[in-house]
């Protein structure tokens, strides 16, 4: 019981401890890479020291405004559109089962078309600007959110639905207080999947047609034979992806606080 309570509200000391558990392997790998590559003469695999120097030169701080912010801006816009549409349509399809069944073949087909296959069309229609990238990200990130929302809505307990009906809870309140929170654990899972898909798509679209962004910077470095900078770009991408994931976990933690606490309580009751 005490242990579980600690998990919900960790003490600072415990948090440092947990950070240590998570951090030791990356730190060890970094050191190993540094040592092993220290005397590297290879053109394609420069020493980590060179990469870190290139990282400081290209990404701090100029690269952040020039490349990172445009990438993140497009990602945020595409992800927001995907979330709004995915959750919105998912609610409708989850609640109106007949419509869900009718649309399911079309949706399954569209889902099977990978977003990268739409890139030529996107370039043709929208050019190489932001709107093409936002559209591609929105398309790719839309599907996981849609499907998990539908699942989440359909998975809401029948008794809860009966309660909402018998107490005549009107539709809007039912959506905000019953359906959305009930489906939230699944929706968050879909959003997390979509976030990593979105990162992939943004880099890809920047490599294929762009004048800015992290993907563009990596490709330009490679074409200019600035191999250390190319590696630095990949490193930057890894760091950004990791930070975004942490940020999303924070959001999830807030939204699903009741869910976590409930599972803790139930586990504690069983043990």
């Amino acid at each position, binding site marked *: 019981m005490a242990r579980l309570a600690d998990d919900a509200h960790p003490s600072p000391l415990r948090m440092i401890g947990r950070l240590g558990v998570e951090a030791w392997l990356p730190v060890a790998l970094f050191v190993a890479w540094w040592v092993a590559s220290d005397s590297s003469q290879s053109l394609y695999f420069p020493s980590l020291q060179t990469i870190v120097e290139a990282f400081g030169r290209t990404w701090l701080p100029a690269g952040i405004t020039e490349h990172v912010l445009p990438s993140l801006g497009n990602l945020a816009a595409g992800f927001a559109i995907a979330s709004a549409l995915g959750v919105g349509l998912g609610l409708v399809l989850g609640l109106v089962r007949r419509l869900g069944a009718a649309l399911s073949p079309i949706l399954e087909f569209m889902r099977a078309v990978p977003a990268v296959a739409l890139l030529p069309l996107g370039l043709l229609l929208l050019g190489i600007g932001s709107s093409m990238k936002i559209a591609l990200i929105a398309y790719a990130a839309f599907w996981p959110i849609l499907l998990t929302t539908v699942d989440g809505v359909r998975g809401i307990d029948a008794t809860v639905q*009966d309660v909402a009906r018998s*107490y*005549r809870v009107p539709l809007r309140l039912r959506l905000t207080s019953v359906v959305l*929170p009930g489906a939230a654990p699944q929706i968050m899972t879909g959003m997390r999947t979509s976030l990593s898909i979105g990162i992939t798509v943004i880099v890809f679209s920047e490599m294929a047609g762009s004048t800015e962004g992290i993907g563009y910077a990596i490709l330009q470095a490679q074409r200019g034979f600035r191999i250390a900078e190319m590696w630095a770009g990949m490193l930057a991408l890894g760091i950004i992806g990791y930070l975004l994931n942490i940020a999303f976990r924070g959001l999830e933690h807030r939204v699903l606080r*009741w*869910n976590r606490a*409930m599972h803790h309580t139930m586990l504690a009751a069983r043990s």
Partner: protein
Amino acid sequence: MAESATTPAVAARRPAEPPDTAGERHSALLSVQRLTKSYPVPEGRRTVVEDLDLDVRPGEIVTIVGPSGAGKTTLLRCIAGLLPASSGQVVIGGRPVTGPPEQLAVVFQDYSRSLMPWLSVRHNVELPLRGKNVPRDERRRRVTDALADVGLGHTAEQHPWQLSGGMQQRVAIARALAYRPQAMLMDEPFASVDAQTRADLEDLVLDLRQRLDITILLVTHDIDEAVYLGDTVVVLGGRPTRVRERLTVPLGRDRDQATTKALPEFVRLRTHILTGIREGAS
């Protein structure tokens, strides 16, 4: 428990209430008229409930008892407007039921699933009132009163899963009370709690009726519970289910777990119902 203090320890042995005036349709708050419910099955249609008549008058507790699988829950869902009747009708306040009526509040059997785990106790009780557009201050007052009525004034900010099963069912009852219905429907409300909690909750229901004069239609498979709580006991039986018998319980309003259940009249009624159900089963 909290309510045992307000329940008289010694039940006064008053004579029975004025005799049942069954058949007086116009005085009924809730009236089930020739209700039939059937489902499509591969072999055609299966009739679960047939030609069922039932009246509940204001201030009365009517208990419906019958063997498991007798379609008690189906009947209650039809009355609650959650299931359409195949024929016949349910009338509340003079109007036939076509969907969930605003005069009714339902307490479901499975308390652990009928409360929303993402809402605090207060917000669970408040949710139906927000739907009814009850003003904010009034909502707060009603929620506080209802929680106090079920002896849970201190738990408003907790979440349902932090409470015991019996307390969760009290929250569900508070939600029904705060809704201020004309009648409360209870579907085997105490079937999944332990014996002591069950006795406490039964006394809570009697106590609420004494203090708030609420009307209750309660479904149970427990014959003791049906007699202990009911002013009228409706015994179901047969396949499809019909009303087998309608009994007036002459035990007055002040009842007590120990003494009432030892009264000859209580024992006689219980034995009578049990015998009837056994005969029906064989």
